[in-house]
């Protein structure tokens, strides 16, 4: 019995030691590679990642381009009860984040508070914690009503808190769904307004979203295991409307790309597809 026990202890210690020294093993083999590399050539590995703007940033661009406030275009906070599956919750977290930004930037503070509460509720449902409670977002928001700059700072902190939470918990793939919901919502509001009232600047901001959409699709492809296929197909469908802005490709001159806009027909077609996808999302 004693011999067996000591044998077991010896095996355990040896295993732990080997595991612990794994790094050195790698180092030795790496050293060998380096010796070879000096004779052959050092390989270069290339990886691509994609940044996305915050929903607040996108909403801010639309507002500055003259997007008026229309509360009927936002998703009702009451719809939260419909959102049962995690993916639907993530998408609508994005939708509410966009509505929060839209209402706060237009001084619709009571609406903004409802959306903040909806985001806290969805955070509890998705991650079993209110990720905003530690920074007291709601209290800070209420205290700063009437001071636009301070409100923007509060919403900025909210975004930073969300980015940090997703990164630290290995949930970066969630950002694809959240941003998709936010982006579709802002595009919905923008295209609905633009269909009724022509606005050259807003049209151009809508067209400029091609760069954002390309990055969103890039991330969706990177996390394809975690992103529902339906969502990727829907985004690709929207992406087709932006093809004309990609014609010149990456080798185009900067100057030639600065006058981008949709024709009335193109805008109607885009608005129709955006509405269809947005309806699917908010209906859960």
């Amino acid at each position, binding site marked *: 019995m004693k011999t067996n026990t000591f044998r077991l202890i010896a095996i355990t210690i040896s295993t732990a030691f080997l595991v612990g020294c794994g790094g050195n093993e790698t180092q030795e083999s790496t050293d060998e590679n380096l010796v070879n590399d000096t004779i052959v050539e050092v390989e270069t590995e290339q990886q691509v990642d994609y940044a996305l703007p915050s929903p607040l940033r996108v909403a801010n*661009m639309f507002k500055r381009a003259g997007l008026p406030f229309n509360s009927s275009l936002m998703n009702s906070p009451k719809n939260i009860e419909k959102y049962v599956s995690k993916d639907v919750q993530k998408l609508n977290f994005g939708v509410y984040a966009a509505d929060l930004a839209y209402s706060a930037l237009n001084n619709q503070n009571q609406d903004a508070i409802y959306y903040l509460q909806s985001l806290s509720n969805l955070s509890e449902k998705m991650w079993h914690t209110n990720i905003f409670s530690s920074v007291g977002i709601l209290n800070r928001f209420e205290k700063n009503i009437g001071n636009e700059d301070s409100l923007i700072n509060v919403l*900025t902190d909210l975004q*930073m808190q969300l980015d940090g939470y997703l990164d630290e918990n290995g949930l970066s793939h969630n950002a694809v769904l959240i941003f998709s919901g936010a982006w579709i919502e802002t595009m919905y509001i923008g295209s609905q307004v633009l269909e009724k009232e022509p606005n050259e600047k807003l049209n151009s901001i809508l067209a400029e979203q091609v760069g954002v959409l390309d990055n969103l699709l890039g991330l969706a492809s990177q996390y394809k295991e975690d992103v529902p296929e339906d969502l990727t197909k829907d985004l690709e469908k929207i992406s087709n409307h932006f093809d004309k802005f990609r014609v010149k490709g990456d080798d185009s001159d900067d100057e030639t790309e600065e006058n981008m806009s949709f024709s009335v027909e193109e805008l109607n077609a885009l608005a129709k597809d955006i509405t269809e996808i947005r309806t699917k999302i908010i209906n859960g």
Partner: protein
Amino acid sequence: MKKVVTILLAVLTIGVTGAFKTQDDNSCDAAKLKNEVKPKLDPDFKYDSSKITRISTSSDNQVKEIEVPLFIGEKYRFVFNAKAAPKDVEIEIYNKPNGSSKRKLMYSSKKDKAVDGIFIYEPDKSKKMYINYNIPSTSSAQRGCLVFLLGYKI
């Protein structure tokens, strides 16, 4: 005796796992690194987004590219915290992606005087930008991370 063996196994497992966890934690405290550079956006720029890029050097050179969409005519500030990055990682910013014939280098950290591993760049013209982290090969693996914060002017 069985109890002793069980305790020994548990202690060893915790010890080995803990050692590795500590190594990883020490190499990148993303929240701290982000909070350190956020004031670099003040007072003119607001936080837009961030990217934490975890780096592990190897016997190969590596290039990690981040595509950053910017809106035309807007003012942006790029802030990098390279304090926790492995040594000699270089930051470059281009106007076009890798492989494009019109790709121009807009910024290189090599030509910038960093203060405590913090680099700042403000593009003259805003269009999609391509950040490259050039990670040189090393004889032994080094871990770390690089934090990128994007700010926009209201």
